[in-house]
């Protein structure tokens, strides 16, 4: 089965720090991959390179066979690879609903719809309804409807995370990169949030790559685990195998609070 | 067609004036990250205070040779009375706000001070030329130059040397560097950052007033004096790098020479060239030639 995303030999150094050393991974379509590793091991660097925020010093990244290594985040996003952020990137001066409407508006803009001369309300690309309906639908799906008219800034941590992910998923990405989707969220909420996300993902059909520190979340939701340490991949396989790998035990699991 | 000599001499004199006029602006920006539009007001305040006090001094028959001290005193007075009031009374409540908002606040203050000056000193020109005329002139390469201009050059050099020594050689100067680099950390380490801000702002405004005061014997002091100075100072400081003192010197020299060359060879382009250099620096190296801060651009 051809990989939807294929990273080969990625290298990246920042001065004395090696953020990536020969990182290679072929991600299969519709798979759910968990990235684990201590802070600074190279997980976020990996995501940043895939999304075009960083350019690798050497190596390549292919998306459905096409080389996307030199592209900026904007173009990569439009190709269908979208990411959420460790620190939720929201429009803090807008309400939750306005945030979603803004995201959907951008999708309309990208598709050249709803412009100056347009009449009526066009359907949002990838959805079958105009922005207002789609916004309400997505907020409903993510359990954010109660917060519709609240300012994004005053949302509790878990809701901010959810909104960030909801915004990312509004574009119906083919590849969804989640940077620590459950961080900053209480232990009880973690599983709930991941359930919600995975449910939404299954409905759309997308490949998911998520960074996670909580090993229980990883083993529960990931079909494949890639472990990073010191810029290298030290383990890559099904959760049961990867999490029991001695190097992973030593460099990743042992140092974390599960 | 002028020869190179007079072009250089004019350039040096104008650079000296620009440095004195602009260095306070870059100092205040470097420490407080504030682009202070009232800098132009203090230039004008210094000019008015210097001219009117010197005029009164001379009218009373006191020794004209001491009028230079009066000019200095006028600048000091103008700065000490107004600057702390502005900083403590208004600006310090704005520090948390966006750079552009603070700039707008200083612009509002500039407007207020423009009229305050008119209310205090009236709208008639002040022309107190004695300190200037007193020193006569000297001849270089067949052209006469007022000796007073040497004072300006001397003042600029003294200022540059003095500031360099304070920043590098004194404890206060080193603390200042710390505050410039990281006000939060400095505060956490016990440095009285608020006092630094007050002193820096007052000193920066004093330097502007000094520029105005020592220029007053050479011009007719009229309302609106600060309006041209502020935008020229912006140019000097941007070219050299916002917040950099050596940058202010370099910027002053560049603008001074560029202006001198245009005035002598192609006067129509004088202003055009100065602001083109400013735009060019912003386009190619926005942080300025010696600038430290990474500018906000994509």
């Amino acid at each position, binding site marked *: 089965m051809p990989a939807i995303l294929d990273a080969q030999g990625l290298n990246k150094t920042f001065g004395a720090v090696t953020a990536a050393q020969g990182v290679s991974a072929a991600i299969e379509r519709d798979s759910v991959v968990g990235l684990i590793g201590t802070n600074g091991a190279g997980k976020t660097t990996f995501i940043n390179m895939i*999304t075009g925020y960083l350019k690798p010093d050497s190596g390549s990244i292919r998306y459905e066979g096409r080389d996307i290594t030199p592209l900026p985040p*904007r173009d990569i996003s439009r190709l269908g690879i979208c990411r959420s952020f460790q620190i939720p990137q929201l429009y803090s001066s807008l309400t939750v609903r306005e945030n979603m409407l803004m995201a959907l508006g*951008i999708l309309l803009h990208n598709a050249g719809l709803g412009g100056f001369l*347009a009449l009526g309300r066009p359907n949002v690309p990838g959805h079958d309804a105009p922005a207002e309906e789609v916004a309400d639908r997505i907020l409903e799906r993510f359990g954010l409807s109660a917060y519709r008219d609240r300012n994004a800034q005053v949302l509790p941590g878990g809701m901010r995370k959810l909104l960030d992910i909801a915004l990312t998923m509004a574009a119906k990405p083919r590849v969804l990169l989640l940077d620590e989707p459950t961080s900053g969220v209480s232990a009880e909420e973690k599983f709930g949030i991941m359930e919600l996300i995975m449910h939404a993902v299954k409905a759309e059909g997308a490949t998911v790559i998520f960074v996670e520190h909580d090993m229980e979340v990883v083993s529960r939701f990931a079909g494949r685990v890639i472990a990073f340490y010191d810029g290298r991949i030290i383990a890559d396989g099904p959760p049961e195998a990867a999490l029991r790998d001695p190097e992973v035990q030593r460099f990743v699991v042992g140092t974390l609070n599960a | 067609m002028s020869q190179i000599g007079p072009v250089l001499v004019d350039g040096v004199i104008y650079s000296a004036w620009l440095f004195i006029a602009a260095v306070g602006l870059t100092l205040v920006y470097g420490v407080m990250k504030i682009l202070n539009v009232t800098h132009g007001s203090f230039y004008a305040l210094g000019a008015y205070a210097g001219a009117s006090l010197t005029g009164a001094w001379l009218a009373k028959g006191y020794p004209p040779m001491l009028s230079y001290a009066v000019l200095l005193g006028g600048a000091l007075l103008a700065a000490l009375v107004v600057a702390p009031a502005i900083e403590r009374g208004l600006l310090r409540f704005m520090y948390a706000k966006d750079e552009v908002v603070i700039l707008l606040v200083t612009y509002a203050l500039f*407007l207020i001070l423009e009229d305050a000056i008119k209310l205090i000193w009236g709208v008639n020109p002040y022309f107190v030329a004695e300190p200037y005329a007193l020193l006569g002139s000297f001849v270089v390469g067949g052209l006469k130059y007022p000796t007073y201009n040497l004072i300006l050059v001397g003042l600029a050099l003294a200022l540059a040397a003095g500031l360099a020594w304070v920043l590098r050689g004194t404890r206060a100067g080193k603390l200042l560097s710390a505050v410039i680099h990281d006000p939060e950390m400095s505060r956490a380490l016990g440095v009285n950052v608020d006092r630094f801000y007050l002193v820096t702002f007052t000193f920066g405004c004093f330097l502007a007033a000094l520029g105005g005061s020592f220029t007053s014997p050479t011009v007719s002091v009229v309302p609106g004096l600060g309006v041209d100075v502020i*935008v020229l100072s912006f140019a000097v400081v941007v070219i050299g790098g916002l917040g950099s003192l050596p940058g202010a010197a370099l910027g002053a020299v560049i603008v001074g020479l560029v202006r001198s060359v245009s005035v002598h060879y192609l006067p*129509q382009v004088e202003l055009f060239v100065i602001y083109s250099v400013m735009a060019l620096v912003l386009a190619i190296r926005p942080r300025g030639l010696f600038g430290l801060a990474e500018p906000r651009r994509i």
Partner: protein
Amino acid sequence: MKPDRTPQLLAAVFAAVVVGGLALPQWLLFILTIACAQGLVVLGLNLLIRAGLVSFGQALFYCIGAYTAGGLSRAFGISDLLLQMLAGTASAALAAFVLGFLLARYRGIFFGLLSLALSMIFYGLIVKSETLGSTDGFNLAKATLFGIRPGEAWVRYAVLVAAASATLAAAFLAWRFLKTPLGQLGPAIKDNEIRVEYMGASVRYAIHVNYVIAAALAGAGGALAATTVGHIDPEMAYWTTSGEFVFIAILSGTGSVLAPFLGALIFGAIHTVAFDLSPNTWQMSMGLALLAAIVFLPDGLWSLFARRKTA
């Protein structure tokens, strides 16, 4: 959510001006026309401010528009107001299209400084130009409309109606633009550029577009002001002119396309009255008003009318 009644409001104000103008004194007709001119500039400036970019150089485009009108009048004898405004709009938009490639990459204070520098370059050019009258500038012939030269008693009224018509059209088009996804990007860009880019939109493109529209509006305003006043001079490009536009913008707020015109009108009215009463405290009043606006009414006067939802 209250329905947006802006087009109706615009039409109502237009009607009021056209009908009411018949009864107003000449000096008030003049003020209203200048308010249209300045309002147009600020309408454009507001687009940039919404995106978080305060331009201290809109006077550049205002002046380009004015000198285009002046050039048409002096060199070609064209005194048709609407033609002048169209030409002013076009030349300013063209300049902004070119400059926008550079300027769209700047933010914060550097955007302000660069826009300032560009306007001062233009000032430097025209203030030393003998052919353009140096610091004095030059005069323009009285306005004509569609080939007709209105009689002395009707000129001001005719110009006001033409100005109001152009303003109505511009404000309506701006309102439409602000309803499109591109037009709505401003606050998103100001709030979180990263989010905007990661959703696939080009922030630079959006800013470039806003910059050109703002310039076009400023050019129209400048051409209108030129013919209304009958005189242009380099001061129109000076930084203090840009400062006035920023002042009106802060005072009005960005809440509506009508706000800039309200702000410009208040500015004009106060200027005339205050200046007559006490010419040496006019700027001080301006400064105090600006301070009050920044501290107490950060969303401008318009926020007093609009009832926005808060958190």
